[in-house]
C-alpha cells in the first residue's frame, strides 16, 4: 500500500466507483476512475458537463453530497512519508479534517458563494490557519497579509478587513487561492477556478497557480473544460467522459496526438484564433447520455464515428500505448492508431 514504491506519487486513485442514490435508483457516476499524480506535477482533468470531473474532486476530499457514496476503490494520499487511504477515513473525523484544508487545499468556481458575505475576507483566510496550526491571532493576521501581498492583492493591510462584496471577481478568486494555500498544503484541487472570469484575469490567475507549482513545489489538480488552457498549464491530462477516464497521458501526448475518438472530437470542436473560417467546426453527433442509460460497453459508443458492435458488448479496458499514455478504446491498431474512416461514417 505504499505509494513511494515505484514513483513518487502524491495521490493515487485506484478503480474508484461513486454511486448516487436518487429517489429509489442508484446511479453510477464514477466508473473505475484510476488516476495517479506524481508529486509536484500539474494534472488537468477535462471533459464536458456531467462527465464526473467535479465528483472526482469531491470524492478525493470526501465532500460528496449526502446521497453520493464511494462504493469501491482506493484513494491513496501520501504526505510527510506517510500514506493514508482517504476513502477509509471518517468523512468529518479529525484525520480527514486535518487533511482537508491542511494538506489538500481546494478552490471552487463560484467565489461569491464560497465566501461568507458577513465576514471580513482576512478573517476567513485566517480561520483556516487557526484551525490547523497552534498560533496566535496576530501571527495569523501577519501571515495572511504576507500571503495577500504575494498573491498580488493591492494594499493587503487594508484589504484584510474588507468584505467579499468589496472585491472584484478576480480579487475574490485570489482570496480563494489564499484560503486554499495558506496552510501550505501539498496538493491543491482547483475546480474550474477561472471559468467565471474574463480572459485577461484568467491569465493572471493561471500564472499565479503555475508559480506556486514551480516555486513552492505544490501539486495541482485543475478541473476545466478549456482545452487551450490545459495545453498551457498541464503536465498530465486526463480526459473524462460519462464517469470514466477515456484517455490519460502527458500534455503533449493527449493534446498534440489525441487517440481516443472523444478527445479528437473535443479538440476539433473548439475554434482557435488561427482556425480556417471556411472549414466547418467538427461536431459530436447527439448529446451526452444520462449515466443511467449506459450500463454496458463503451460510454461513447452511441456518438462515436468509429463504433463497431464489439464496442457495445463489454466494458472497454485501458490500452497502454506508451509508458505514460493510456487510451480506453478497442478500435486502436497495434500502433495505437484509429482506423481511417471511409465515406459517410464521419460525424456530420
Amino acid at each position, binding site marked *: 500500500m505504499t505509494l513511494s514504491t515505484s514513483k513518487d506519487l502524491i495521490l493515487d486513485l485506484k478503480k474508484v466507483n461513486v454511486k448516487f442514490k436518487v429517489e429509489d435508483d442508484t446511479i453510477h457516476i464514477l466508473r473505475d476512475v484510476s488516476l495517479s499524480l506524481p508529486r509536484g506535477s500539474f494534472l488537468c482533468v477535462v471533459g464536458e*458537463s456531467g462527465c464526473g470531473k467535479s465528483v472526482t474532486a469531491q470524492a478525493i476530499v470526501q465532500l460528496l453530497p449526502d446521497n453520493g457514496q464511494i462504493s469501491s476503490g482506493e484513494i491513496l494520499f501520501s504526505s510527510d512519508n506517510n500514506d493514508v487511504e482517504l476513502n477509509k477515513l471518517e468523512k468529518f473525523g479529525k484525520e480527514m479534517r486535518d487533511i482537508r484544508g491542511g494538506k489538500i487545499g481546494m478552490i471552487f468556481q463560484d467565489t461569491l458563494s464560497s465566501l461568507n458575505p458577513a465576514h471580513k475576507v482576512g478573517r476567513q483566510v485566517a480561520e483556516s490557519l487557526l484551525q490547523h496550526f497552534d498560533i496566535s491571532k496576530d501571527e495569523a493576521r501577519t501571515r495572511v497579509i504576507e500571503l495577500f501581498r504575494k498573491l498580488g492583492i493591492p494594499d493587503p493591510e487594508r484589504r484584510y478587513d474588507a468584505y467579499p462584496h468589496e472585491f472584484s471577481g478576480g*480579487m475574490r478568486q485570489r482570496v480563494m487561492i489564499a484560503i486554499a494555500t495558506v496552510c501550505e498544503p501539498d496538493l491543491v484541487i482547483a475546480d474550474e477556478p477561472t471559468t467565471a472570469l474574463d480572459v485577461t484575469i484568467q491569465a*493572471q490567475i493561471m500564472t499565479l497557480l503555475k508559480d506556486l507549482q514551480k516555486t513552492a513545489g505544490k501539486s495541482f489538480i485543475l478541473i476545466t473544460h478549456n482545452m487551450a488552457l490545459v495545453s498551457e498549464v498541464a503536465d498530465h491530462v486526463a480526459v473524462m467522459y460519462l464517469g470514466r477516464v477515456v484517455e490519460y497521458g502527458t500534455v503533449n501526448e493527449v493534446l498534440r496526438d489525441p487517440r481516443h475518438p472523444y478527445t479528437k472530437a473535443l479538440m476539433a470542436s473548439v475554434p482557435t484564433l488561427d482556425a480556417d473560417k471556411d472549414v466547418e*467546426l467538427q461536431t459530436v453527433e447527439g448529446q*451526452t447520455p444520462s449515466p443511467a442509460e449506459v450500463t454496458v460497453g463503451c460510454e461513447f459508443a452511441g456518438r462515436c464515428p468509429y463504433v463497431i458492435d464489439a464496442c457495445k458488448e463489454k466494458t472497454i479496458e485501458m490500452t497502454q500505448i506508451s509508458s505514460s499514455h493510456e487510451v480506453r478504446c478497442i478500435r486502436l491498431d497495434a500502433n495505437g492508431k484509429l482506423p481511417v474512416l471511409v465515406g459517410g461514417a464521419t460525424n456530420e
Partner: protein
Amino acid sequence: MSNSTTPLYKVGQIKKHFPVLGGVLRRTKGYVKALDGVDLEVFRGETISVIGESGCGKTTLGRMLALLDKPTDGELSFDFGNGLQDVRSLRGENQMKFRKKVQMIFQDPYTSFNPRQRVGAAMDEVLRVHGVKDEAERNARILEACEMVNIRPEYLQRYPHEFSGGQRQRLAIARCLATKPELIIADEIVSALDVSIQAQIVNLLLKIQRETGLSFIFVTHDVAVARYVGHRVAVMYLGNVVEILPAESLPEAAEHPYTIALLSAVPSMNPKAKEDRVALQGEVPSPIDMPSGCAFSTRCPSVMDICRTERPVLKISNISKGDHQVACHLNKGA
C-alpha cells in the same frame, strides 16, 4: 461584407447612462456610463461579433439595438426598405414592425422559455403577436423554422424542460426565425453550452446566414468564436468601441493595445503564444468614475501624455486602411 453602401442599421454616438442612486432621498449620485458614444453600422448579410470583457457594455449595446432599453442619447436608424429611418421615436404598430425585423436571442435557454407552455405554443404566440392571423401560415412558418434548426416537428408538443440546453437554444433560434427577421441579436448564446454542442450551434448559425442572408450581431466574450462567426469584429472596452476590423485579419492585424492584450490573454494550443503574452496589469476601472481621456489609459502599456487628457475617436487605421477602424492616439488615421 460591406458590399452594399447603405447600412441596414446605423448606430450613431449612442449613449446609455444608468443613474446611481444614493443617500436617504435616493438622489442621483452619479452615472454608470455603460455606453459612452458608440458608432456602428450593420450591413445586410453581415455578422458583427462584439467582444469585450464583463462590464464593457456589450450586452447593453445589444439590448439598445433591440430597443429593449432606451438610450440616453444618440441615433438609431433602421432601413425598413426605403432608406434609414429613426427608430427611437417609433410607437405602437410601427414599433412592432421594427421588433419583427430585429429579434434577440438570449444567453440562458433555460429561462427564455415559459416552463408551463409547450414550445410549439410559445412559437405560435410570437407569430400571433406579430399579426400572422392565418393559423395554417403560422404552422407552416414554425415548421420551416424548425427544419432550419434540425428540430423534429413532433418535439413542438413538448415542454422546455424536456430538452437539453443545446436543443433549447436551437428552439430559441427557431422562434426568432419564424418572424422572418432581418437582424438577429445573439447575446452570448453559446457561452452556457458544452464545446461539442457549441460547435453544433455555431455551424447552424453560419448555415442559416448562408441560406437566408440575415444580419447578425453576435455578442460574446470568446474571442476565437467571435472571429470564427463574424465578418467583422468590434472590440469594446468600458462603454466604447475601441476597434472594428475584418474578422479574418485577426489576430495579426489588431492595432489597439487593448485588443492586442485581450487576444494574447486567450489561452492557446500554440506554445509560442504564451511567450509573446502581454500581461495586463490591474483591472477594468469602474464605469462610474471613468478615467479622463482614453478609457484604457490606466492600463495601457504604450500610454502617452495625450491619452490621459484627450479621448481618441474611431478613425480608419493608417496601417491596414479599408474596413479597419481604431480609436487610439497611436493611429494617425488614413
